[in-house]
């Protein structure tokens, strides 16, 4: 019975994640901890596995459509993977209360960023590194490479600590600093999320913190959910759902922060 509850929860997380353009992790971890009372460390480890699954599944589609810039991804993964190691080591020192509070803050940030309508940025000047490494595409220049690398390090740390893909930060860096077109930054971010999450998911798996009774139904559920969500997205009014979900996300973020504070007392 509990297995099916897990499966159902993760299918819903996968559907919502695909419709809202968020990774499943940001929905899964609060659902597992607040609704199903799973310890946040197990929730983070299991969520990372599901993030690898959904990201790899989506990346295979984006690659076929040629939106993914593999050269940019290769360079930026240096930042995310280094950050993921730092995050995994930090996770061994940090306690559950601090994790709850940090997750609450990250949820709140995600809700605020959802308010912002993504627009294709005006083309920026090509950065010297982008020129040397031929990162720019046929119809766009790549700017602000060092800034983006810095944000990727932070994204890697947060991914390992909180069990999320940190796609919202990656996209922010690619839209804001690198001035990439929306489709390119979405596809490239998705492609990179798999590696970022695999860095810490593998570490959690080897250290024995990935519990298969939790991680397996969740991965199957989010994979199925994200496929359903991708199809539903074409028929739904995504803007309205985004607004409703933004409110829900804000409320859950406060609940997570309060749980962190309450456990601290």
């Amino acid at each position: 019975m509990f297995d099916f509850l897990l499966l159902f929860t993760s299918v819903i997380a996968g559907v919502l994640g695909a419709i809202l353009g968020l990774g499943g992790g940001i929905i899964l971890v609060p659902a597992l901890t607040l609704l199903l009372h799973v310890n946040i460390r197990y929730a983070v480890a299991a969520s990372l596995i599901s993030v690898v699954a959904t990201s790899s599944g989506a990346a295979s589609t984006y690659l076929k459509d040629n939106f993914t810039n593999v050269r940019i991804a290769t360079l930026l993964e240096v930042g995310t993977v280094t950050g993921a190691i730092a995050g995994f080591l930090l996770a061994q020192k940090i306690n559950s209360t601090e994790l709850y509070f940090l997750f609450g803050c990250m949820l709140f940030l995600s809700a605020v960023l959802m308010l912002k309508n993504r627009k294709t940025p005006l083309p920026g000047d090509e950065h010297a590194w982008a020129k040397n490494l031929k990162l720019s595409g046929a119809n766009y220049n790549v700017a602000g490479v060092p800034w983006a690398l810095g944000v990727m390090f932070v994204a890697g740390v947060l991914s390992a600590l909180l069990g999320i893909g940190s796609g919202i930060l990656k996209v922010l860096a690619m839209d804001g600093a690198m001035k990439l077109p929306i489709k390119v930054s979405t596809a490239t971010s998705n492609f990179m999320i798999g590696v970022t999450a695999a860095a810490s998911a593998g570490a959690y798996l080897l250290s024995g913190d990935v519990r298969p009774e939790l991680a397996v139904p969740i991965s199957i559920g989010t994979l199925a959910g994200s496929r359903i969500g991708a199809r539903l997205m074409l028929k739904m009014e995504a803007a309205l759902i985004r607004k409703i979900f933004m409110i829900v996300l804000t409320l859950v973020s406060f609940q997570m922060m309060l749980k962190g504070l309450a456990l601290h007392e």
Partner: protein
Amino acid sequence: MNKKLSELLRYGVLTSGLLMLLGWLSTLDFNKKSLPSLSEYQTSASLVTILTQAIEQSQWGLLLSYAGLALLVALPVFRVFVTIPFFIKQNEKILAFAAAFVFVILIVNFAISLDF
């Protein structure tokens, strides 16, 4: 390269999903109402210890689940590895170095985690 990477990820996700599904179905317990062992964090035994015990006790469902999980996590790592020769062939030394660096860091990260 994009097409090859796309196929690698697609078939890898399908295979790992199938392994996990088989493992999960074979260990399914319809009477379980909660997982009390998951509500409190306990220091875990390492994966090597867990797998050794599972082999000794012939827990094939659990082993299948772990095989699926390991394959899933290995997919992006393998994906990084295959880009190294691709960039070397293209004479893109810096990008080949970046991909090799990411691959080495991933392996080092996994090695470090064995101590926790």
